[in-house]
């Protein structure tokens, strides 16, 4: 039996179709995922992301402990700011990619993918040994609502007194919406300007309804996980389980910039990642673009310019709703990774010609 979101009732009232996702029953779409996708690109979409996991790290050595646990530099994050980082195992394999908010000098909130909630909570607890910190899984204490799209700032401004001009991208601040105290963050996973709001589950409905009402005049639509996936794909953002796995390092996935060897502390995976950073890449993540309407999909083989054997595999793909042509990400040998290289994808026995293109596929203007 999967866990319903604190907002399950409102989704049912809106006629959502549900999907099981990492043990949660979440809305996959309300009416049309293409209309929801378009709404986020052109006006705004309202998402329930309450399945995401929130883990609190508190204590005088919180910054030191996170610098040890993560490959990135978390100690240099200023209070009120956030950072995207990666949690690796000792072999340098990616356990999760996550956003961490520094809420106070000695208090961080780590937001993990739902599917990795246990892995991350366990790893952080294990890695806290010897540090003066307390690691607490607070997932049950938070609902997460996102409003994403070019109109999202106007919508949030209409229901809160928060000074959004001073809230930069990857920053957060305490705010109040319709009397509900929450954490307002300017983050997202869609390639648009947007906000993520962390509040108590019991008050999630109130926040959702306030945003929904304020969004009416802007054409805001409730948006499900189906369009969240096509939005992040167009924005070239990795999805754990697809572009990222424990058998791939951040360097494989094009996230080598997140690994901060220059930080003073040791960190889990440092030795393996140092070796990997100096090795010649075997496979790299590339963007692929084709023509027509047939989509490359996760697991489909990528074939080289001369045909024949598979040289790689598609990790994510779709007919891009914004661009109108098929796009995908794939791991291919480095000699086939130059932009402009002509490859093909085996789409259930039919060859789809594709070209290697730079990521992201879509960048907001």
């Amino acid at each position: 039996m999967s866990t319903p979101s604190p907002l399950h009732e409102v989704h049912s009232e809106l006629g959502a179709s549900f999907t099981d996702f990492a043990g949660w029953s979440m809305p996959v779409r309300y009416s049309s995922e293409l209309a929801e996708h378009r709404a986020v690109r052109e006006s705004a979409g309202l998402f329930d992301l309450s399945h995401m996991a929130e883990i609190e790290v508190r204590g005088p050595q919180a910054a030191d402990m996170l610098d040890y646990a993560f490959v990135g530099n978390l100690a240099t994050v200023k209070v009120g700011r956030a950072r995207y980082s990666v949690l690796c195992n000792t072999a340098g394999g990616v356990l999760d990619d996550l956003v961490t908010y520094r809420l106070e000098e000695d208090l961080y909130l780590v937001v993990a993918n739902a599917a990795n909630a246990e892995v991350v909570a366990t790893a952080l607890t294990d890695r806290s040994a010897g540090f003066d910190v307390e690691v607490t899984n607070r997932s049950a204490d938070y609902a997460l609502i996102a409003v994403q799209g070019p109109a999202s700032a106007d919508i949030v401004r209409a229901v809160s007194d928060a000074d959004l001009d001073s809230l930069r991208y990857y920053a957060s601040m305490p705010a109040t919406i319709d009397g509900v105290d929450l954490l307002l963050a300017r983050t997202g996973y869609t390639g648009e300007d947007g906000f993520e709001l962390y509040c108590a589950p019991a008050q999630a409905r109130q926040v959702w309804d306030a945003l929904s009402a304020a969004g009416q005049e802007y054409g805001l639509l409730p948006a499900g996980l189906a369009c969240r996936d096509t939005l992040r794909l167009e924005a070239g953002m990795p999805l754990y389980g697809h572009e990222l796995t424990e058998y791939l390092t951040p360097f494989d996935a094009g996230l080598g910039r997140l690994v901060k060897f220059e930080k003073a502390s040791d960190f889990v995976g440092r030795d393996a990642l140092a070796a990997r950073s100096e090795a010649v890449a075997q496979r790299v993540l590339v963007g692929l673009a084709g023509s027509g309407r047939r989509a490359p999909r996760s697991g489909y083989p990528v074939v080289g310019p001369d045909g024949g054997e598979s040289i790689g595999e598609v990790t994510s793909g779709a007919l891009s709703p914004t661009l109108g042509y098929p796009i995908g990400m794939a791991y291919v040998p480095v000699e086939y990774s130059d932009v402009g290289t002509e490859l093909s994808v085996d789409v259930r026995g039919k060859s789809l010609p594709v070209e290697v293109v730079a990521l992201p596929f879509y960048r907001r203007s």
Partner: protein
Amino acid sequence: MSVPEELHYTEEHEWVDARDTGNVRIGITEYAQDQLGDVVFVDLPEVGKELSVGEVFGEVESTKSVSELFAPMAGQVAAINEAVSESPDLINDDPYGSGWLIEITPADASSTAGLLNAEAYTRLISD
């Protein structure tokens, strides 16, 4: 979920309409399009192609998934709906009408005999 009384159905969520012309028209049900989500691509066979019962005659793709289309009976493809190739969203908007897929000239006149009626299909999708 609409299941028109006058149509026949398959367990693969296709509907079959025996037309006065002797041909049968085939499409996917409202339930099927709802499960798929927005249809973005349809692959249909050439007119004249001979199909055996259960043979895959095409595909319907949504943003999230691909579904094969199965011939509910043996016969020859008599017509395809060019409009859905151009506008696959017709399948979402009007699955029993303008979102039809192909017409077949059945090899056997009693070809709809083994199919589900509306009542049986309604039971199938409510399980």
